[in-house]
C-alpha cells in the first residue's frame, strides 16, 4: 500500500529553502523577540527600575549633609570622568543607531542623536574647564565652559522630549542607512555650530560664572529651565509608557535630575564640592543605564537567535530524512511487485522446462505476473496523481458503493486471519463530490490500519466495523472501528504527523495522507480511542445540488 502523503513533505522542503534568513529576521524583528523597544515593562525589569530609582534617592539623601564641602584640587580627576562619560554616551548612541537600523523607529534615531550630541560636547567642556588643561596652554575663558555646559544640559532633555513624542513606527522617507548618515551629520553640524558661535563670541558671552568655582546669578536660569524640561520628559515618558526603553530613559532623566539638584542647588553651585562630585556620579550612572540595558538585551536576543537557528537546523535535518524516507518508501512499493514478477517469470520458465512440464503452474505464474504488473502500474499512477496538483478529477460519488468496494477488497484477506470486516450502511446517503481513487485509498488505508490493529490486539472475536451515516448538516460520515489495543496516549497527539507509526515496518505516511485527502475534500478526519479499541471517523460535505463535474 502506497503512502502518498509525502508529496507535501517534498513541497515543504522546497518552500523551506530561504527560511533560515527569515527566522533570523523574526528573531530580531518580532515584538516578542525584542521586548525592549516594543512591549511595556513588566515583571523583573520594572522591579529593577524601581529599585534603582530608590537607590538613587537614598544616595541623594546620604550626600545632602556634605554637599557643600570643598574637595580641594580634585579637578585633576575631571579628564578621567569626562573620558568615561564621553565613551559611555558614544557607545549608547552607536548601539541605539544599530537598533534603529533594525527597528526603523524614528524615536530611536532621535534618542541616539541626543546621546551623540551630549557626547560630542564633552571634549570641549573638559578641555576648557578652568585649571585642568592650563599647563598645556589651553585657556578659553570661564564663560566658554559654562556656555558649553548649558548647551549640553538643555540640549539632551530636548532630544529626550523629541524621543518621547516621536512616533514609534512611521514610514521613513529616507532609507535607514541614509537617515543615520543624515542624523549623525546634523548632530555634528549642530555641535560644531554651537562651539563656533560660543568660541567666536567669547568676549560677549553672558557672565554665567563669577570665578573658576562659583556660578553667577545668571547661571541659575539654566538648571531651572533644565529641571522643567526633565520633569516634562519624565511625565510624558511615564504616562505614555510605550516600551521598556521609556522606563529606562525616564530613569536616566531622573538621575540627571538628581545630578542637577546636587550640583546646582545642594552643592550651592560651587564646582568641585562634594555635592558637585556626587552629582557627577549620577551623571555617570545616567550615561550608563541605557547602555547596560541595551547590552543585556542584546545578549538575550543573541541567545534566542542561537536557539532559533539551532531549532531551524534540526527541522531541516528532519525534512531531509523525510525525503529520504519518502524515496525509500516509493522504492519499496515498486520493488515488491517487481520482485514478484521476476520471481514468477523465473518460476514459470522452470515449470515449462521441466521434464514433465506443468502447464497449470506456468499458467498461474503468468497470471500472477499480469496482476503484479497492474499492481505496479496502479502504484505509479498513484504517485503521479499525488504529484500533479489540481488535476484530480472529481465526480459525484455514492459513498456506500465506494466503501463497499474497499471492504470487499480487504475482507477475504482479513478472514484468513479470523478477522471479520463488517459493514453497516445508512440506507439513503446524500451524494458527495470527490476523487474516487483518492477516497478509495483513504478507505483502504483506514481498513488496513484497523485490521493491523486487531491483529496485534487480544480482543475476541476479532472484528472491524465500517459504518456510514448522515451527520449534521447532511454531511456524510464514515467510521472504521476496531477492537484492537486502541491508541496509546503518547501517540494520540501526533497521530496524523508524518513518520509517526506504531508498526515496526510502517512508514507512518498513511494517516497523514488520509487526513490531507479528506481535508482537500472539505471534510475532517479524526480518531477516538476507548478501552475496547480505536475508531477513525471522517466526514465529507454532501452536495445540495447534484450538478456537473467540478474537475
Amino acid at each position, binding site marked *: 500500500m502506497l503512502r502518498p502523503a509525502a508529496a507535501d513533505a517534498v513541497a515543504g522542503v522546497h518552500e523551506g529553502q530561504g527560511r533560515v534568513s527569515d527566522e533570523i529576521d523574526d528573531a530580531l524583528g518580532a515584538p516578542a523577540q525584542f521586548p525592549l523597544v516594543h512591549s511595556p515593562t513588566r515583571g523583573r525589569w520594572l522591579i529593577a527600575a524601581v529599585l534603582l530609582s530608590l537607590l538613587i534617592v537614598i544616595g541623594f539623601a546620604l550626600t545632602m549633609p556634605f554637599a557643600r564641602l570643598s574637595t580641594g584640587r580634585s579637578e585633576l580627576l575631571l579628564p578621567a570622568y569626562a573620558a568615561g562619560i564621553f565613551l559611555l554616551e558614544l557607545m549608547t548612541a552607536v548601539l541605539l543607531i544599530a537598533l534603529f537600523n533594525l527597528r526603523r523607529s524614528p524615536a530611536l534615531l532621535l534618542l541616539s542623536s541626543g546621546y551623540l550630541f551630549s557626547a560630542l560636547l564633552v571634549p570641549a567642556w573638559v578641555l576648557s574647564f578652568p585649571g585642568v588643561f592650563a599647563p598645556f596652554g589651553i585657556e578659553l575663558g570661564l564663560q566658554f565652559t559654562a556656555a558649553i555646559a548649558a548647551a549640553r544640559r538643555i540640549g539632551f532633555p530636548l532630544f529626550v522630549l523629541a524621543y518621547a513624542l516621536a512616533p514609534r513606527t512611521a514610514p521613513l522617507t529616507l532609507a535607514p542607512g541614509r537617515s543615520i548618515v543624515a542624523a549623525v551629520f546634523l548632530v555634528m553640524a549642530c555641535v560644531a555650530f554651537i562651539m563656533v558661535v560660543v568660541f567666536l563670541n567669547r568676549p560677549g558671552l553672558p557672565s554665567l560664572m563669577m570665578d573658576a568655582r562659583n556660578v553667577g546669578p545668571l547661571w541659575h536660569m539654566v538648571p531651572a529651565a533644565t529641571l522643567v524640561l526633565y520633569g516634562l520628559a519624565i511625565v510624558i515618558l511615564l504616562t505614555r509608557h510605550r516600551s521598556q526603553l521609556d522606563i529606562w530613559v525616564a530613569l536616566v532623566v531622573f538621575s540627571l535630575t538628581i545630578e542637577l539638584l546636587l550640583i546646582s542647588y545642594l552643592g550651592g553651585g560651587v564646582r568641585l564640592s562634594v555635592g558637585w562630585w556626587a552629582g557627577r556620579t549620577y551623571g555617570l550612572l545616567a550615561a550608563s543605564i541605557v547602555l547596560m540595558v541595551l547590552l543585556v538585551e542584546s545578549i538575550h536576543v543573541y541567545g534566542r537567535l542561537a536557539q532559533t537557528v539551532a531549532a531551524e537546523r534540526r527541522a531541516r535535518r528532519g525534512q531531509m530524512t523525510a525525503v529520504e524516507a519518502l524515496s*525509500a518508501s516509493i*522504492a*519499496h512499493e515498486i*520493488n*515488491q*511487485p*517487481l*520482485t*514478484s*514478477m*521476476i*520471481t*514468477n517469470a*523465473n*518460476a*514459470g520458465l*522452470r*515449470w515449462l522446462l*521441466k521434464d514433465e512440464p*506443468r502447464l497449470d*503452474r506456468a499458467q*498461474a*505464474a503468468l497470471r*500472477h505476473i499480469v*496482476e*503484479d504488473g497492474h*499492481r505496479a502500474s496502479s502504484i505509479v499512477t498513484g504517485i503521479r496523481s499525488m504529484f500533479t496538483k489540481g488535476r484530480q478529477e472529481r465526480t459525484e460519488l455514492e459513498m456506500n458503493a465506494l466503501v463497499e468496494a474497499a471492504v470487499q477488497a480487504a475482507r477475504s*484477506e482479513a478472514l484468513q486471519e479470523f478477522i471479520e470486516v463488517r459493514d453497516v450502511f445508512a440506507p439513503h446517503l446524500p451524494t458527495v463530490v470527490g476523487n474516487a481513487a483518492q477516497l478509495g485509498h483513504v478507505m483502504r488505508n483506514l481498513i488496513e490500519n484497523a485490521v*493491523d490493529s486487531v*491483529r*496485534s490486539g487480544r480482543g475476541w472475536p476479532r472484528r472491524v466495523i465500517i459504518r456510514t451515516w448522515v451527520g449534521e448538516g447532511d454531511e456524510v460520515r464514515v467510521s472504521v472501528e476496531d477492537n484492537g489495543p486502541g491508541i496509546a496516549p503518547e501517540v494520540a497527539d501526533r497521530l496524523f504527523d508524518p513518520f509517526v507509526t506504531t*508498526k*515496526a*515496518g*510502517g512508514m507512518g505516511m498513511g494517516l497523514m495522507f488520509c487526513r490531507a485527502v479528506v481535508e482537500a475534500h472539505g471534510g475532517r478526519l479524526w480518531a477516538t480511542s476507548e478501552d475496547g479499541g480505536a475508531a477513525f471517523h471522517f466526514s465529507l460535505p454532501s452536495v445540495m445540488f447534484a450538478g456537473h463535474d467540478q474537475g
Partner: protein
Amino acid sequence: MARSMVYVVDDDRYVLASVESLLASEGYEVATFSSPDGFMAGKRPDVPACLVLDVRLRGASGLEFQRELHRARIAIPIIFLTGHGDVPMSVAAMKAGAIEFLTKPFRDQDLLDAVRHGIELDRHRRSNEAQLVVLRQRYEAMTPREREILPLVVSGQMNKQIAFSLSLSEVTVKVHRAQIMQKMQARSLIELVRIADRLAADAARI
C-alpha cells in the same frame, strides 16, 4: 532426494506466492507464512529445512524474529530477503548467523543456490547432532574411573605414566584402557582422540 522443507515468511502475499512457485518448481516442499507468528504456531516436521525471511515485516522485523528464533533455540539456516541493500543491516544479519542476504528483486538462481546450501547445512548439522547424541551416550556409559583416564590417554601418556599419576597398577590401567576403547567403539588411538575432541568441542559449545 531426501525430504526437506523450505519455510517462507513475507507479509506481501504476491511475493510469497511467487517464491513458493519458484521453489516448488525445483521440487522443494514449501510452507508459506505471512507473519513470524504463523511460522512459530505451525507444525515443523523433523526434516532438514531452511527459512526464507523478509527483513521488513509488519509486527516484528525479520532481524528481531531471527533473535527470537535464536532464543527459542530453533537452529534453522536463514536466508534474508530485503527491499534495499542496507549494508549495516545485512552485516548484522550475517553476524547473527544468516547464510545469505538477497536484495529484491533477486536472481532466481541465487535464491535456489542459497536454499540448497541452507538445506545442506541443516542436514549436516542434523547428522552431526545425531552422531553427537550417540557419542554422548557412549561417554555416559563409562565408569567415573574410565572418564578420568580418558583425557590422559588421548593426551598421549603411556600406561606407565597414567598408572603413576593415578597411583594404580599398570595392569589396571591397561584393563581400563581396553574398556574405554570398547565402550567408545574406537578402533585405534587416533579414532579415540577424534571422538574425544568432538565431545570436548561440544561441551565447550554448551
